[in-house]
């Protein structure tokens, strides 16, 4: 430790600490502009200059490391005068158009001038004016050059954290201007983090422009519902109308970072077609009914089914919160007496025998419920089966920062290329399901499969892995769609044991593409698994044994699953389909009973993110009047079936939840949820883990056949994001992404791709991505499930499809 004296106070700090960090730990206020946590140090704004005894020049506090017995003055006369001069010089060219500036009221320059400025300027000449008009760099980012103070926070965050390198600086000296190529932002992720870090009103949000003044806005801090990263965000509303999302350095796993979906997709709460009241199908058409009537109908139907020994199936969307999920499984188990509960129809691999047991085995015994930050401390980070930069963009940003900042190796094996490939020490394309094979080889001293690319990859990374004291496995959940899900899960458990046995620290976290996937499972929304991963009898399920009543909460399995997929079949043949959801969707159209649910943004509760952290959801506006909330509806159904009503408040529900799942909500560096869960009946069973991996056939994809894979992209989180006006405007047209093989890119300009499979086809413009391998083709899930004729996976994932590229120049050609 080093002892220093700052403004007369003595403190001890770690060697290497900067004066600024030391000062902030003492709550000494040193103004800064260019400094931003997690970005490289620039030390260019010169606002933080302080006096260090024995040095003849003032030193930038942000960049100067403490030295033993350093005596620092951060408020001496000289320092104060310097700040005043610096602000006067900075304001000389600043337009001072605060009354019409979007940033007015939350501007760091304005605040700093109030606090540290002199209040008057002697500089009276004409100000520099770059341009009269602002430049819309793209659909969400607009730039006013005159206000820019060249702190370069935007440029640094874009390159160092987001990894886009879309922003840069043109010209030099006073003419320096932030810009993109040709005044637009090529390669921009539209994350808007540059807007967030801009201290002044230079970079602004197009959707928020001139919409409100910060002081008129009502703020609610809540958790994003786009993916499992679980970013904190602040939704701002005026007169009940949503205006903008902000994020703050001090809160959440994400700090100031958000992705395009998080920052610009919140308007989805105002989109889509809201279901206004209960409805029932009469002669094929939906007619409004009273709540009473609808509930009575469901209760009567359920009673008949139960008495006749029929089946009742439940589906819940991974966007539902823990509390609602807990009540939902109660409704299914205690009221309807059914175990047949599904939390994601997309993960068809979980329907295979033994898969759910393997999942429980991994989640209870191996998953690390630890801060992502601590997982990122591993020397070796293994990213498996995930396009993290598109499905969990902020996790990707954090990963990029950690890899850039630290001396560590990143390995990537996934079906889709991702934005972190350039940082990876090694990367390869791997078909979903082959994770099992890769992990298996990683555990062999000498990988034995000759001529297999996985083999080559493993031998490249093995020396580094062997040397590392700590390894983090970050695993996407794409493999859960494949028939090899169970094998993958078993190999995941084995590989953790394997490296732990070598004395390494091993971390395991999943990268879920939905905000509460883990939470739903924790809450018992799985067939045969009660809350807290306790074993409970599972229901037999075959196509012969179709449910007589299906209750869908929030999800849209009729859209998501294949025609002859058992899950989809069940609803089609169900004698009674209850759809309880906030907005119209494919399943809702088919419903026998349609109940409005409380949407995200109007209900309180919690989500469990990828870390296992339970985070609060707060309503950002009042829920619709005269409608029972989703949880109230469950009580009404229970009561109609002669059972008592349970608590519905989020806090009250935590009591029974914690009783079933000890440790729920406790989270931190120390809380070991693994142990808590391990006691719940999923011991490591040798028989399970030693099951041989069934290696997938190495199909030689010839001619026009390719494997179709799907998932989210930067602007999509399933169908949900289709409700966002802003996101839809950024990503409105479907595309098929693939590597077309030889030939310059421009030769493929304007080409269309048609995918054909068992009579169905999907056609969209070609998007070239040469980082794909030549045996895969990608279509974002939202596009694949939209529109009439779609390709269905039918439990086969990845799916072999015929690919035909055709275009204006060439006639249909094979690839």
């Amino acid at each position, binding site marked *: 430790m080093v002892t220093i004296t700052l403004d007369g106070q003595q403190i001890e700090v770690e060697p290497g600490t900067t004066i600024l960090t030391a000062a902030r730990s003492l709550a000494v206020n040193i103004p800064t502009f260019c400094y931003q946590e997690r970005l490289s140090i620039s030390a260019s704004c010169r606002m933080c200059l302080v006096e260090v005894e024995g040095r003849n020049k003032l030193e930038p506090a942000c960049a100067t490391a403490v030295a033993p017995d350093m005596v620092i003055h951060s408020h001496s006369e000289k320092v104060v005068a310097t700040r005043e001069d610096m602000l006067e010089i900075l304001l000389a060219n600043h337009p001072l158009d605060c009354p019409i500036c979007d940033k007015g009221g939350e501007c760091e320059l304005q605040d700093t001038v109030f606090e540290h400025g002199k209040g008057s300027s002697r500089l009276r000449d004409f100000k520099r004016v770059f341009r009269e008009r602002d430049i819309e760099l793209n659909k969400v980012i607009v730039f006013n050059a005159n206000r820019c103070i060249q702190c370069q926070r935007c440029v640094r965050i874009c390159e160092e954290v987001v990894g886009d*390198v*879309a*922003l*840069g*600086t*043109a*010209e*030099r000296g006073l003419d320096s201007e932030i*810009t*993109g*190529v*040709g005044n637009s932002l*090529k*390669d921009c992720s539209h994350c808007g983090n540059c807007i967030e870090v801009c201290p002044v009103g230079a970079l602004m949000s197009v959707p928020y422009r001139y919409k409100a003044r910060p002081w008129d806005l009502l703020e609610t801090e809540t958790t994003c519902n786009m993916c499992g990263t679980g970013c904190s965000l602040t939704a701002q509303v005026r007169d009940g109308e949503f205006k903008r999302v902000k994020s703050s350095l001090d809160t959440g796993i994400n700090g100031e970072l958000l992705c395009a979906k998080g920052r610009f997709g919140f308007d989805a709460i105002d989109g889509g077609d809201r279901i206004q009241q209960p409805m029932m199908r009469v002669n094929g058409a939906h007619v409004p009914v009273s709540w009473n009537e609808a509930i009575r109908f469901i209760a009567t139907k359920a009673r008949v089914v139960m008495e006749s020994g029929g089946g009742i199936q439940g589906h819940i969307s991974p966007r539902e919160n823990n509390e609602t999920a807990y009540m939902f499984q109660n409704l299914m188990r205690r009221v309807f007496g059914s175990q047949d509960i599904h939390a994601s129809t997309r993960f068809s691999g979980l329907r295979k025998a033994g898969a759910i047991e393997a999942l429980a085995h991994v989640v209870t015994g191996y998953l690390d419920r630890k801060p992502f930050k601590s997982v990122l401390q591993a020397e070796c980070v293994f990213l498996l089966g995930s396009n993290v930069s598109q499905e969990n963009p902020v996790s990707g940003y954090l990963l990029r920062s950690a890899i850039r900042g630290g001396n560590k190796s990143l390995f990537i094996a996934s079906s889709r290329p991702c934005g972190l490939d350039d940082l990876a020490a090694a990367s390869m394309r791997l078909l979903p399901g082959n994770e099992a094979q890769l992990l298996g080889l990683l555990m062999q001293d000498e990988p034995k499969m000759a001529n297999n690319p996985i083999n080559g990859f493993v031998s490249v990374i093995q020396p580094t892995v062997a040397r590392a004291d700590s390894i983090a496995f970050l695993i996407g959940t794409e493999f859960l769609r494949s028939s090899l899900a169970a094998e993958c899960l078993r190999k995941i458990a084995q590989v953790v044991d394997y490296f732990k046995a070598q004395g390494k620290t091993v971390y395991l976290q999943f990268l879920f593409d939905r905000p509460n996937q883990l939470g739903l499972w924790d809450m018992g929304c799985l067939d045969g698994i009660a809350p807290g991963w306790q074993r409970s009898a599972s229901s037999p399920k075959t196509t012969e044994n179709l449910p007589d009543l299906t209750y869908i909460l929030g999800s849209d399995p009729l859209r998501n699953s294949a025609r002859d997929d058992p899950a989809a079949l069940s609803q089609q043949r169900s004698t009674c389909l209850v759809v309880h959801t906030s907005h119209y969707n494919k399943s809702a159209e088919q419903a026998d009973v349609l109940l409005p649910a409380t949407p995200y943004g109007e209900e309180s509760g919690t989500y469990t993110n990828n870390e296992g952290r339970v985070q609060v959801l707060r309503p950002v506006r009042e829920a619709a009047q005269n409608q029972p909330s989703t949880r109230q509806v469950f009580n009404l159904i229970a009561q109609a079936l002669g059972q008592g009503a349970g608590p519905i408040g989020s806090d009250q529900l935590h009591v029974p939840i914690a009783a079933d799942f000890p440790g729920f909500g406790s989270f931190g560096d120390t809380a070991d949820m693994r142990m808590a869960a391990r006691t719940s009946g999923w011991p490591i069973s040798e028989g399970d883990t030693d099951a041989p991996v069934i290696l997938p056939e190495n199909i030689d994809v010839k001619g026009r056949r390719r494997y179709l894979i799907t998932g989210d992209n930067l602007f999509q989180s399933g169908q949900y994001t289709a409700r966002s006006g802003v996101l839809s405007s950024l990503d409105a047209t479907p595309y098929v992404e693939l590597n077309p093989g030889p030939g*310059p890119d*421009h030769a493929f300009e304007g080409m269309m791709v048609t995918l054909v499979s068992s009579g169905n086809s999907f056609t969209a413009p070609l998007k070239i991505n040469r980082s794909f391998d030549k045996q895969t083709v990608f279509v974002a899930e939202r596009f694949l499930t939209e529109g009439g004729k779609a390709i269905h996976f039918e439990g086969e994932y990845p799916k072999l499809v015929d690919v035909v590229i055709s275009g204006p120049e060439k006639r249909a050609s094979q690839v």
Partner: protein
Amino acid sequence: MSDARSLTDIKRDLATGVRQMRARYPTSRSAIMPALELAQQKYGQVEGLTYQAVSELLDVPEIWVFEVASFYSLFDRSQTGRHHLRLCTNLSCMLRGSDALMQHLQNRLAIKSGETTSDGAFTLTDVECLGACEMAPVLMVDARYHGDLTTDKLDVLLASLAGQPTKEAT
């Protein structure tokens, strides 16, 4: 630059030279400056398609190329005349009469500093110190220095240049 030149053309033109430059450095980013210089030698200027070509040849973000092109003042981002006259107006040259020479040049060519004559023969620019103050005032004509100038010497120089069709090689 003529609109006819396509990205593919530019990449083809520059590929070999850029590859040679690239070999001198451990990172491809380092070759941005030499690559832009090659392009400028070839086309007399650098612009949008050049940035894209260099970015693709070196596999670096295009904005990096543009940043460099706009930071350094020797890169011409618009078409210049057949001869580029760069008159040093910095202190040592100023003390020895560069202001009068600038006036003279502007009058003779009927353009202002920063402009190109309508026949496309000359571009005139006032520049910072050329590092030849011992022969102040100095004019850089394309790649060569001409020192100890007077208005008479300038006239002779202009006359000889008018007959000369292309830029001297660097």
